């Protein structure tokens, strides 16, 4: 139990600070001073002490339950990942549930902005789920979907990033899609205010932000674990900082894409990733 709590706390703190770092780097590239690195963390805490209000148009209790569900599924991801090193397929299922919650957090409020974000989330699932499915290539290479066995395989045969680089690149595109201000972040485009979070205030927003931080940490953790291997905590930290920095550079220099272009680009990259990786394996 203590191990779970410790890992969840690390995931939340690291995810929040990496988000803050990303905003800072983006700001410096754009010649702005930018917020402090701990801004995202402070923002999350702030929402826990602010007044919570619920729109009278919301679908109750679904509107509240959906934020709790998001938190629960990402805490489950921490248990499956860093704590027990369970099945990669289980993390895939958790990611699928994340897409469902993202979609319904938007539609449950009755807001037109949330609704647009919801429809975009449905579209984006068509591209992001195939990108996540690129991890199946790992099964063809290693013969297992168990994280501890995948780490063991890499200890003997070297990091998978060298043998299946296209799969790693595709997974990186998925990580990029989940970053705020990314060219693929269509569910939270500024044209729809804050997307699915627009009508979530106070405590509920706090839960959404905690979940986002844990989700960011987990995606980076999965990337480093399945493509580079079991690292010590310091190397995980270095790896996560490098990945977040690369993402910040891309986000700072590219505009958000039109939803159709975003989906087509992601779907095309997923296709190239799957076909290319299978050819490389033959």
């Amino acid at each position, binding site marked *: 139990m203590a191990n779970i709590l410790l890992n969840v706390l690390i995931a939340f703190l690291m995810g929040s600070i990496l988000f803050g770092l990303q905003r800072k780097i983006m700001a410096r590239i754009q010649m702005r001073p930018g917020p402090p690195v701990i801004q995202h963390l402070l923002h999350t805490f702030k929402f826990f002490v602010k007044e919570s209000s619920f729109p009278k148009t919301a679908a109750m209790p679904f509107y509240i339950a959906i934020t709790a569900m998001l938190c629960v599924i990402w805490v489950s991801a921490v248990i499956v990942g860093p704590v027990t090193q369970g099945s990669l397929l289980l993390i*895939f299922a958790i990611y699928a549930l994340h897409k469902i919650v993202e979609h319904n957090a938007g539609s449950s409020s009755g807001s037109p902005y949330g609704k647009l974000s919801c429809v975009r989330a449905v579209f984006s*699932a068509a591209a992001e*789920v195939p990108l996540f499915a690129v991890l199946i290539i790992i099964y063809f290479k290693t013969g297992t979907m168990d994280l501890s066995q995948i780490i063991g395989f890499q200890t003997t045969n070297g990091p998978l990033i060298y043998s299946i680089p296209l799969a790693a690149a595709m997974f990186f595109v998925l990580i990029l899609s989940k970053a705020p201000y990314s060219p693929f972040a269509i569910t939270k485009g500024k044209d729809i205010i804050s997307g699915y979070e627009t009508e979530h205030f106070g405590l509920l927003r706090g839960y959404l932000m905690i979940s986002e931080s844990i989700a960011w940490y987990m995606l980076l953790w999965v990337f480093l674990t399945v493509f580079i291997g079991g690292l010590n905590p310091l190397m995980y930290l270095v790896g996560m900082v490098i990945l977040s920095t690369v993402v910040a550079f891309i986000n700072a220099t590219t505009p958000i894409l039109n939803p159709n272009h975003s989906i087509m680009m992601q779907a095309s990259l997923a296709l190239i990733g799957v076909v290319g990786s299978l050819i490389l394996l033959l």
Partner: protein
Amino acid sequence: MDITILGQQLLGYIPLGDIVLYLAPLNLFMFASTLAFTTIIAISKTETQVEAGFGTLKDREVKVDKSEFKIRRFLAIVCGLATAGAMITGDLFNFTLFVCLIGIVNIGIVAAVKQVDVLDAAFQYGLVAMIATLPLFGGAAMILASTGTISLLEIVDLPTTFMMVFGSLLLFIGVAGETGVAPFYATKAEMFRTPGSPFLLIIHLSSLLVIVRVIEILLIINKPF
């Protein structure tokens, strides 16, 4: 019991005649998640969708009326139970039956709506789902013909043959059509414009979780080693 599937230790199975329930961590997680979401759907009200009124400064409210609410909630619960069944069945034929039921109730959930664009999308999805029935059952039948069994616990130990690969391909096309995932998602996304958030959740939930399950099943049937 010492059966390992895709690196997961099988925790047990419950034989109920020809329905064999299959208990592995992935399947139990997806089963429990589906039941949790179905319970929330069963006890939730629907949202009121607020839209800008045309030619006026007032807002327009789109609500789900009571009779529509009742039938959509019933179908959403049926869809949730069918999805839960598809998550833990250890029998390929039962899986295809659950997926087929999910396709039918997904159309039903949206067919009760009184919006022309949404009904058009549901009609097109219905056509795709009906056409997909043939490869869905054809794929399962081909796997049965080439292996002599539809039990996943038996198939996991059998070497992969060309007909099993061909059957798997048909099965995947069938599931993609029935659940309306890519490349059929553009049609299905239009269905989500209607109010009734809790009911729309189950349409999305069933599609994505069935895709995760079918990937597991395809990896069980097609062993690259």
